[in-house]
């Protein structure tokens, strides 16, 4: 008879959960795709790592949640049992798969998958799964048993190794491009599809040493920084900024066009994120059609600079950008005016409609004469830093006798500079009088009005300034791609921007930038697993919202709310008069 409060039963439950997750990953085809990538070459593939990590995590959680007794034996038994159950469920899955043809329903339940799961031993190899599962579970419970001081560096190191393995392809390409010593080092550290064994070993030693030495050091460094005289502090800051600036300037030359392009896209999303952060984060006005302003900025630059059939004028990018930003601001006001009195959920739906209208109009046959319809606008001029005439008006076909922003490596500078400018403006706005007015209407519109805040003006400014940021992003996007299609202005862009803000931290400028890196940059770098992009994206969002709902880098307001949210009782009233 199983006692439901028994720790063994708890371990089995968590093991079954782990096993179900493992089977799910297998059936959607993730394990098969990930097995083509190595974490450590010839030792462990990404697919294996995922399954083992599932077993280890269920072992860890089972150990953590068991309350009966915290002796070492019960801990180890719990962990092993949970891992064993995970492995067992997978083994059962393999056995069932070998008896019945599951492929009629589950396309990915192929012999290839079962071979992978059992290390090519077929159904007989299912026992291996039990062994590995139990071992992983044991490791999980051992990890729990370790003191925090050892555990943290260890898990951090493992995570770091995992990250290095994921991005090893990128590092390898970049380093091999440098030739000479760097190329040799790259071949030593990184294999074709993951870390080499020696590379993994070296990274492990370095990172483990670093993380265990680092703990507690950051406070010391902060302390010694604070003790420096004012002049010294400024010097340290200047040096830090100079180093960062140097890295930022040199980066595209070292990394090549692919990484530069990823950074450009991150910058564009960060600009949109900072724009929406004004309307949503500062002023509390939800906008689900934010891509519309991006589209307005993009189409304005396209129409003004294209030498294709739809180009209206042939002015230079530099002259077109201010017009594009103004056009976006105008559309911000056009959206803002009718929805001034609309609040909350209704506002979300109204703005959603606005975004779709802009996209459908731009792509419609009705306006195809002007916007190219589904064919889009092509032949958009690249920006050129040349003579003064070229600064304003350009000839067709144009020659650039200066610096041409031809590809991602050059547009990188444009995007980065614009993103920094916008982040600076957003930061100044936040602490301005207008920023305080936004904060007040976000908290309570009626009270804000009663305090002397002009609701119409303040709300419209939030829409208009947010739109300006997105419009600038759209303008840069246009010259990056060289063409615009209405189909790139999809709803999911708007939703991505909202997700960036929520994951990064509503109302927090560094949070938005971090959110853009996490949600746009990382998936772009992991193009190979793009099939599962939205699955992983969804899982990340759910975990984020459960574990850290305030965002990666929450704003001061939210941080304070989390710190002390207990209400002061009135029972202290006798002191009030004091």
């Amino acid at each position: 008879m199983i006692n439901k409060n028994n720790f063994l039963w708890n371990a089995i439950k968590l093991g079954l959960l782990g096993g179900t997750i493992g089977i799910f990953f297998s059936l959607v085809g993730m394990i098969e795709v990930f097995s083509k990538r190595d974490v450590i070459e010839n030792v462990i593939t990404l697919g294996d790592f995922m399954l083992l990590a599932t077993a280890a995590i269920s072992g860890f959680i089972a150990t953590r949640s068991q309350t009966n007794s915290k002796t070492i034996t019960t801990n180890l038994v719990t962990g092993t049992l949970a891992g064993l159950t995970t492995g067992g469920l997978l083994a059962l899955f393999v056995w069932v798969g070998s008896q019945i043809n599951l492929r009629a329903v589950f396309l990915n339940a192929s012999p290839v998958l079962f071979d992978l799961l059992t290390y090519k031993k077929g159904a007989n190899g299912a026992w291996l799964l039990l062994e590995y599962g139990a071992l992983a579970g044991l490791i999980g419970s051992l990890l729990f048993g370790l003191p925090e001081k050892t555990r943290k560096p260890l898990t951090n190191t493992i995570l770091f190794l995992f990250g290095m393995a994921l991005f090893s392809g990128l590092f390898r390409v970049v380093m091999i491009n440098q030739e000479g010593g760097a190329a040799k080092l790259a071949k030593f550290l990184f294999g074709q599809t993951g870390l080499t064994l020696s590379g993994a070993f070296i990274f492990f030693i370095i990172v483990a040493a670093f993380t265990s030495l680092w703990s507690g050091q950051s406070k010391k460094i902060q302390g010694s920084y604070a003790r420096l005289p004012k002049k010294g502090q400024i010097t340290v800051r200047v040096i830090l900024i100079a180093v960062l600036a140097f890295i930022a300037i040199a980066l595209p030359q070292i990394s090549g066009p692919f990484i530069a392009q990823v950074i450009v896209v991150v910058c564009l999303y960060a600009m949109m994120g900072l724009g929406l952060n004004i309307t949503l984060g500062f002023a509390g006005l939800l906008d689900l059609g934010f891509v519309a302003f991006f589209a307005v900025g993009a189409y304005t630059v396209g129409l003004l600079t294209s030498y294709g059939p739809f180009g209206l004028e042939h002015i230079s990018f530099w002259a077109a950008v201010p017009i594009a930003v103004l056009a976006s601001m105008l559309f911000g006001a056009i959206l803002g005016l009718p929805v001034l009195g609309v609040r909350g959920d209704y506002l979300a739906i109204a703005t959603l409609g606005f975004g779709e209208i802009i996209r459908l109009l731009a792509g419609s046959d009705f306006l195809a004469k002007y916007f190219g319809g589904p064919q889009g606008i092509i032949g958009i001029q690249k920006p050129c830093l040349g003579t003064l005439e070229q600064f304003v008006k350009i000839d067709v076909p144009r020659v650039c006798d200066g610096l041409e922003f031809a590809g991602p490596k050059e547009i990188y500078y444009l995007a980065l500079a614009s993103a920094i400018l916008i982040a600076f403006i957003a930061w100044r706005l936040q602490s301005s009088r207008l920023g305080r007015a936004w904060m007040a209407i976000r908290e309570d519109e009626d009270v804000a009005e009663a305090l002397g805040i002009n609701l119409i003006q303040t709300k419209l400014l939030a829409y208009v300034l947010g739109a300006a940021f997105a419009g600038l992003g759209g303008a840069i996007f246009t010259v990056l791609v060289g063409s615009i299609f209405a189909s790139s202005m999809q709803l999911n862009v708007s939703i991505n921007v909202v997700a960036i803000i929520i994951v990064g931290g509503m109302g927090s400028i560094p949070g938005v930038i971090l959110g853009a890196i996490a949600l746009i940059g990382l998936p772009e770098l992991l193009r190979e697993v793009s099939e599962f992009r939205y699955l992983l994206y969804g899982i990340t969002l759910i975990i984020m919202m459960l574990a850290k709902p305030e965002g990666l880098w929450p704003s001061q307001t939210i941080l304070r709310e989390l710190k002390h949210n207990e209400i002061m009782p009135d029972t202290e009233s006798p002191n009030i008069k004091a």
Partner: protein
Amino acid sequence: MSTLTIDNIHTYYGNIHALRGISLKIEKGEIVTLIGGNGAGKTTTLRTISGLLKPREGNISLDGEDLLKYPAHEVVYKGVSMVPEGRGVFARLTVLENLEMGAFSRKSKEELNHNLEKMFTLFPRLKERRTQTAGTLSGGEQQMLATGRALMANPTVLLMDEPSMGLAPVLVELIFDIIKKINEDGTTILLVEQNALMALSIANRGYVLQTGEITLTDTAQNLKNNPMVQKAYLGME
């Protein structure tokens, strides 16, 4: 000369005729209270004066200047501030930020700092708690904060909506002491209260409001002794 004059105002919520021709006169330096049951139109009257609701008929003027031609956010600049019902503090902002918001209509930094000092002298408790978020304050402290925030705009007339709501009796007394003090410092006060006994004990005059109409007006002392008022609002037989 009368400070705030409300002449025959009619306010509607859609088709509902909430205020049916209300006239009030509040002289400079007075505390005037508006008493009445639930749904009598007390809050509506205050919201109409502060411009958040626009009446279909009638006039509101302050020192002879028509207030109705200003939108709600400019009424503050004319010297009328409101402490809203249920306090309406910005729960996620700190006490200091709340007070600064109150001075939104005052642009000079010196005036702001001067007013802040004044509020901290009037409410020493808020000074202790100035870095704390307003949502973590007790009910009484929140009421002080809402009052302080309204005073930050240097009003000549302060509209207070149910300051005693949800407070322990000892705190109600404290809040009414503060109201008296604010009045002594030169601010005219229009006080809306369900706790009629407390309100009449500090007010100079009072109006009784019933289903959108003024049914009675007199000095506070006389109202307190009026048998009808005693029966309906003071719980005496």
